[in-house]
């Protein structure tokens, strides 16, 4: 009698079989949105685990219930567990009379140098003086690229020069030299000249390239930057996972320390080139649990944003 009543109002206990078709569709949807495929599987598994055995509400379809649950999970993944407040932290180190140091790392061509320049612009707008350390001593034109940015940035802020000094300075030693050493000299130079922030540009490197990964961990080990930012492009597919895991692993393996420095946060670049295929944001944060500190949305200095988790999830599930 009662069970018949239940059927009439359409509520139903969800079984694995009920969910399977909806989840299979959802998985394909996530992959099409450029979520790494094993992460799409894991996400769907977690939705299944949450929903199995639950009673389906009166007017809700299975597809709708799956979507709502996934929505919650994805927002959860994207919301930073830890807030990184660069302006506040840089103010604090300034009071301690030492420069605040950020190191940018990542694979080739993702936008490290360009987004470093954007962050430099943002810092200058907030009244900080910046030293850019040209520690990509390998790629042709890397030093000139930063010199051009330095010149342009100073031209944009001609009135805010403090005591006749330019707001942005470049520290470079040309090509072929040891990057860790140049970073150290730059940080010392910034301390002596009362420059507030040092932005360390590094050469792009493949996560499997052992000598180059070793060199990066040395740079980080000997200089102990305040912030290590991993730069990854929103265009990247399944590689997102491997890049982040291996960068972190290299920093740990070559650290010779019990408390190794790892990636503190992510810059997600080229967000303007992917339409609604926003999956890399999920792949990257799911993998490391580290926050996306900035999103790069174009090629000019003002194309830098904070991540809007809700908006990203809504284009993901659209």
């Amino acid at each position, binding site marked *: 009698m009662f069970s018949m009543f239940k059927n009439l109002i359409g509520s139903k206990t969800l079984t694995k079989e009920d969910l399977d078709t909806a989840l299979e569709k959802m998985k394909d949807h996530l992959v099409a949105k450029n979520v790494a495929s094993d992460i799409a599987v894991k996400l769907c598994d977690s939705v299944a685990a949450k929903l199995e055995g639950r009673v389906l509400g009166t007017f809700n379809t299975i597809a709708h219930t799956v979507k709502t649950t996934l929505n919650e999970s994805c927002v959860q993944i994207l919301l930073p567990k830890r807030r990184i407040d660069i302006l506040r932290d840089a103010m604090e180190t300034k009071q301690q009379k030492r420069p605040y140091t950020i190191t940018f790392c990542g694979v080739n*061509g993702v936008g490290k140098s360009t987004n470093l320049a954007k962050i430099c612009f943002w810092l200058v707008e907030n009244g900080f003086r910046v030293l850019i350390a040209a520690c990509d001593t390998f790629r042709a*034109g890397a030093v000139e690229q930063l*010199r*051009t940015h330095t010149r342009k940035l100073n031209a944009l802020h001609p009135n805010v020069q403090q005591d006749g000094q330019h707001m942005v300075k470049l520290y470079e030693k040309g090509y072929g030299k040891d990057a860790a050493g140049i970073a150290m000299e730059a940080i010392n130079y910034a301390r002596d000249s009362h420059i507030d922030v040092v932005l360390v540009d590094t050469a792009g490197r*493949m996560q499997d390239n052992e000598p180059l990964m070793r060199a990066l961990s040395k740079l980080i080990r000997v200089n102990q930057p305040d912030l290590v930012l991993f730069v990854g492009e929103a*265009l*990247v597919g399944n590689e*997102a996972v491997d890049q982040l895991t291996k960068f972190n692993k290299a920093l740990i393996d070559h650290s010779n320390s019990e408390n190794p420095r790892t990636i503190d946060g992510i810059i997600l670049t080229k967000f303007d*080139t992917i339409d609604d295929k926003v999956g890399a944001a999920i792949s990257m944060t799911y993998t490391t649990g580290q926050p996306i500190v900035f999103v790069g949305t174009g090629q000019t200095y003002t194309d830098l944003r904070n991540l809007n988790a809700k908006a990203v999830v809504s284009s993901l599930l659209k």
Partner: protein
Amino acid sequence: MVLADLGRKITSALKSLSNATIINEEVLNEMLKEICKALLEADVNIKLVKQLRENVRSVIDFDEMAGGLNKRRMIQSAVFKELVKLIDPGIKAWQPMKGKNNVIMFVGLQGSGKTTTCTKMAYYYQKKGWKTCLICADTFRAGAFDQLKQNATKARIPFYGSYAEMDPVVIAQEGVEKFRNENFEVIIVDTSGRHKQEDSLFEEMLQVNNAVDPDNVVFVMDATIGQACESQARAFKEKVDVASVIITKLDGHAKGGGALSAVAATKSPVIFIGTGEHTDDFEPFKVQPFISKLLGMGDIEGLIDK
């Protein structure tokens, strides 16, 4: 090697057919599931993967087919045909002509490796005795001319560019004219990185294209790219006449399947692959040997009708 891992997974999925006692719908679906999973993990575009699955399914009619051996062969051959379609657009790769001016324009997304690959290609032909040169028509990216200049100087390749001129169309036109007059055989034009969402950048590409009238437009794609490749590649093809693809950064861990969708989208073959940051980390890519190698990984050769 490109897709090597993928080749292994596919052949192992195909072997599952040989191990099965009866071949029915269930066995086929299981095998297709394995193959599609491997393709998606290699970043192959999901639409292409779904199409592959449908096409293989449509070939096989379980009600009409008789013998087990026949079914196996038909399925395996259908899978291979579909895989070949992913890599082979069925068009002969463009080749420069000796003794003529061959103008090649490089286009692609930001940071995909155009500037690096321009020098690699010029160096490749130079070593084979061609008269090659480079033109920097990127006036946007900071340090772009210095980058090309340093690469070209190191590889001893003549180059053209300007710090003062801001219009890439003017530079491209002047450069090509100069090198045509000097009878250069391989004239490579590097352009800025761009994406379909920004109209003015695509318009600029068209103008450079019209100014230099290239014999070949090369679309440069990074091996790490995921699902966004297909629509970008298609947009480039719609604007200029892309005829070749180069996949870069295959020295890393990436399988390059995302970049492969550029082959379908532009109907153009992959002509070279980039395998490192140095000028000689560059290999010609030939579709047929690649496929036989992929086939050779299982002992299933001879399945495709020649």
